[in-house]
């Protein structure tokens, strides 16, 4: 589903006299359907950058980000912007640590949106959103409120619900359990297991050893892609 080969990324900081910050080089790994690959390595090793490169949020300087999209292999690193948008709509989902809340939109609609964008009827999408919010222990009285005023942990759970609601074949998880309590971490582990059974390919970053052990099928050590500075 994902086939990254020899991908490189360097930041050039023009405002700091043009210094070059190498991030990663020679990133090469693949992910099969139904598999969860966890990226490991110390803070600053480039795990999040790799995730962002696979999502097309960071541009690669060279190399290939192969993605199976609608049955064909496409290279995200060279795709046109609107092709990247199509790939995100139909193929790749991204669960970040932080919710980028849109003002005035009710929680249940924030969660249902990815389904509505793909053509599901609003009522059905909201029903599925409700199920997930319920599983993630967001009380029903909050569903009609915009999540902007929620606590950090609640916002993160809304974000997880939004990320897991879709039927996208690839999911990228950036510390999905970071500020959750034990009960909610267990729900996320369950959700990941369900996605595996549905054949979803996942790449995750998790710092919690116990969670990593529970969800990882394979571990890719990012330190081997450390850019030669």
């Amino acid at each position, binding site marked *: 589903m994902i086939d990254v080969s020899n991908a490189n990324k360097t930041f050039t900081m*023009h405002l700091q006299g043009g210094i070059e910050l190498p991030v990663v080089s020679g990133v090469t790994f693949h992910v099969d359907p139904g598999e969860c690959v966890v990226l490991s390595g110390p803070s600053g090793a480039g795990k999040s950058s790799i995730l962002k490169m696979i999502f097309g949020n960071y541009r690669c300087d060279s190399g290939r980000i*192969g993605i199976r999209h609608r049955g064909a292999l496409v290279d995200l690193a060279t795709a046109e912007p*609107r092709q990247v948008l*199509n790939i995100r709509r139909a193929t790749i989902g991204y669960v970040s640590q932080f919710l980028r809340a849109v003002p005035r939109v009710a929680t249940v609609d924030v969660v249902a949106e990815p389904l509505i964008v793909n053509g599901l009827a609003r009522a059905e999408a909201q029903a599925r959103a409700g199920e997930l919010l319920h599983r993630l222990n967001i009380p029903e009285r909050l569903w009609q409120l915009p999540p902007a005023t929620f606590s950090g942990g609640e916002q993160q759970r809304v974000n997880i619900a939004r990320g897991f609601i879709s039927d996208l074949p690839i999911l990228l998880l950036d510390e999905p359990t970071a500020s959750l309590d034990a009960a909610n971490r267990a729900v996320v582990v369950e959700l990941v297991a369900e996605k595996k059974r549905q054949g979803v390919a996942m790449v995750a970053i998790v710092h919690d050893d116990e969670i990593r052990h529970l969800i990882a099928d394979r571990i890719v050590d990012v330190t081997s892609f450390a850019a030669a500075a």
Partner: protein
Amino acid sequence: MVDQNALENDEPLLVAKSLSKSYGRIAACREVSFALYPGEVLAIVGESGSGKSTLLQLLSGQLAASGGHVSYRMRDGVTRDLATLGEAERRFLFRTDWGFVHQDPAQGLRMAVSAGANVGERLMAVGWNHYGRIRDTASDWLTRVEIDIARIDDAPRTYSGGMRQRLQIARNLVTEPRLVFMDEPTGGLDVSVQARLLDLVRSLVAELGLAVIIVTHDLAVARLLSHRVMVMKGGRVIETGLTDQVLDDPREPYTQLLVSSILPP
């Protein structure tokens, strides 16, 4: 094997090729080329004097280019060069398939006639003549832009800035255009009024599948509304790409400066 054909290939709605404009020796806009697809929201960002408003006027055929051309796929599917359209054809396009939201609502509205007439006028211009239907459609649109129906007979000069801007949007969208140009639509508004307007524009654009070209100096507006951005400086497009790519991973020195100048939320 990599198969880029698996990615959708539809036809662009508007294409700009090497668009340039100079005023004497001053080049306001140099060699701008891009294609805009149906349903796509493109933000043009840059500081004052970067040429973004000139570009918007060139694209919407309000200003004659010194070089290059703009073509548009009309409702009948035929792509025409805007420079070859007659004045009547161009006006018709502006009344039907295009909208233009000005920063100052007074430029886009008739301030002394009622809100209902401001919206209804666009419908009459495309041949509607049944008073009851026009009024119903106008009230429907006022509701969609969150204006109290009780104010339908009041003139916009009695409206607040935010209401005027929402009325201008209703007036533009009532004919179901496929392309809307926006020039700093939230420019003169209070922050709270801005947020409400942006939210409204965002949901209408998604609901109606509008293509939008929006000029803004506010990167937060670009991030919230647009799929793609073009960064302009000195009349040139210096960087372009997916909005989140350009804002999260800016490459050009000037874009990095713009992005680093945003105050944290």
